[in-house]
C-alpha cells in the first residue's frame, strides 16, 4: 500500500470507527429505552446545552485551566529537576528510591492528603494534585533522556571547551528532547485523569464535579454528556500534542529514518 492510500485509510478509520460505534449506541439505546442508558441523541442535545452554552464558563473553562496549569508546572519541574539528576550518578543514587516510591502511589490514595495538607478544595489543591502526578513521567523520561546522550557528543563539546551552561542548553536539552516529549505525552493523559478525579471527589465546579453531581441526582443525560466531554478532551489534547511534536521534533523522525537505512 502506498503512503497516501495508507494515510487516507488511517484518517478514514479514525472517523469511521467512532461513527459506527455511535450509530450502534443510538440504535441500541433507542430499542432498550433504559433510564441508565439514554439515547445518543438525548446525550448529544444535553452535551450541546451543557458544555457549549450554559456551563461552558462555569465548568469547562475551570477544568481546562487546571489541566493546563498542572501539566505546565509538572513539565517545568520535571525538566528542571530531571536534568541535574540525569547528569549526576550521585544524585540518581539518592533520589531514585524516593521517585520510585512516590510514583508507585496511586493518585486516589493521595487525594485526602492533598486536601488536608493544602487546606483547600479549590484550585490550589486541584492544580497541585494534577501537577504532582504529571511530574513523574516527565521527570523519569528527562532523567533517562539525559543519561542516554551519546558520550562522543559530550567529549566533542569538552574538547572544544564549550562552557557548561551552553552544553546544557545546546546539547543536553535538545538531545533529551524526544524522550522528554514522550514523558510529556504520558503526563498529558494523566492530567485529564487526575483532573476528573480531583473534581469528582471534592469540588465546587468543573467537568468532574458535574459528573459526580449528575450521578448522585440520577440525572443520566448530563452524566453521559460529561463522560463524552472527558473522552473528547483527552483525545483532542493528545492530537494537539502530537501535532506540536511532529513539528518541533521533525529532525528526530528524519534522523531515526536515516539511521534505520
Amino acid at each position, binding site marked *: 500500500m502506498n503512503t497516501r492510500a495508507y494515510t487516507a485509510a488511517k484518517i478514514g478509520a479514525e472517523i469511521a470507527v467512532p461513527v459506527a460505534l455511535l450509530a450502534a449506541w443510538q440504535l441500541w439505546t433507542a430499542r432498550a429505552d433504559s433510564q441508565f442508558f439514554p439515547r445518543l441523541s438525548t446525550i448529544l442535545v444535553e452535551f450541546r446545552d451543557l458544555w457549549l452554552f450554559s456551563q461552558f464558563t462555569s465548568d469547562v473553562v475551570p477544568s481546562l485551566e487546571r489541566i493546563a496549569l498542572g501539566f505546565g508546572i509538572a513539565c517545568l519541574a520535571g525538566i528542571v529537576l530531571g536534568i541535574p539528576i540525569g547528569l549526576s550518578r550521585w544524585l540518581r543514587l539518592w533520589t531514585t528510591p524516593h521517585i520510585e516510591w512516590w510514583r508507585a502511589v496511586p493518585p486516589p490514595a493521595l487525594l485526602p492528603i492533598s486536601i488536608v495538607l493544602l487546606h483547600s478544595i479549590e484550585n490550589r489543591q486541584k492544580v497541585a494534585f494534577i501537577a504532582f502526578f504529571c511530574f513523574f513521567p516527565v521527570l523519569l523520561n528527562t532523567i533517562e533522556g539525559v543519561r542516554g546522550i*551519546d558520550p562522543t557528543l559530550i567529549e566533542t563539546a*569538552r*574538547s*572544544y571547551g*564549550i562552557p557548561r551552561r551552553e552544553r546544557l542548553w*545546546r546539547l543536553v536539552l*535538545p538531545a533529551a528532547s524526544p524522550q522528554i516529549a514522550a514523558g510529556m505525552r504520558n503526563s498529558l493523559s494523566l492530567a485529564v485523569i487526575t483532573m476528573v478525579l480531583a473534581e469528582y471527589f471534592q469540588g465546587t465546579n468543573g467537568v468532574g464535579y458535574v459528573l459526580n453531581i449528575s450521578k448522585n441526582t440520577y440525572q443520566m443525560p448530563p452524566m453521559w454528556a460529561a463522560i463524552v466531554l472527558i473522552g473528547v478532551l483527552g483525545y483532542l489534547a493528545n492530537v494537539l500534542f502530537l501535532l506540536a511534536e511532529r513539528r518541533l521534533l521533525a529532525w528526530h523522525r528524519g534522523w531515526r529514518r536515516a539511521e534505520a537505512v
Partner: protein
Amino acid sequence: MPALDVNRLAKTYGSGEKTTEALADVSFSVDDGEFVCVVGPSGCGKTTLLKCIAGLLGPTRGEVLLRGRRVTDPPEEMALVFQEYGRSLMPWTSVRNNVLLPLRHKKLSRNTRSELVEQSVDSVGLTRFIDHYPWQLSGGMQQRVAIARALAYQPSILLMDEPFASVDAQTRADLEDLLLRLHDEYAITILFVTHDIDESVYLADRVVVLTHAPTSVKEVVPVPLSRPRDQITTKELPDFTHLRGHVARLVRREQVAPV
C-alpha cells in the same frame, strides 16, 4: 620548540588487582606544520593516547606539552575529530549550526563567525549542503562536516582519531586527499591516529609506530616522499612500497607478540 611534545606518558586504569596498564611510556614530538601519523596493533591504546593528548583524560605519569605549556584541560588551540562522525554531530540542527557550535563561546563578532563557518564548509566542498541536517548527508560528507567544524575553530593542531575508519574505500581516498590539501592550505599541524598502514605512510611526514599494550613507541619512521602526493603515482613509488613494508613488519611483530 616542537608544537607538541609527548613526554614519557603513562596511563593506568583501575587500581589494585584490576589495574590495566594502557600506556607504559610514550614519548614523541610533532613539529609545527608537520603531519604525524600514529599506528599500532589493534587494542594498543591509541585512543587513550589521543585522549590524554587532547586533555580529555589525565595521564598517570608523564606530561603533554603544547608549545611548552602543560596540557591539563582541553586546550583552545587544539581540535579533535572522532571516528564516529555520526555521533559527534548534532542531528537536531543544520550543518551550519554544527560548525558554528564551537565558535559561539569564542570572542568573535557575528560576522567573523559566520564567515569562518561558510569558509570552512566551502573548503570541504559542502556549501550546497550548509542548511541540510547532518543525517541527510552520506557518511563521508558527515565526516567532512566534522572536519569543517575543526577548521572553523582555527586550531594550531588538529588531532584525529581514526577519522576515516568507517567509510568505504573510495570515500576514504577522497577524504585523505582533502585532508592533505587542507594541511597545505591552512598550514595546520596534524596528529592522525589510524590502524591503516597504507594510510599512515601516504599521509604522514613521520609515522610513530606503537607497541602492543602496555604501549610505548616502537619506532618513529620518517616518510621522505615528495608532496603533493597522489593516490596512484605516490603509491607506485618503490619508496612507498618499501616504507609501508617496513611499518607493516613493525606492526605485525607487535601483533604476534605474546600477551
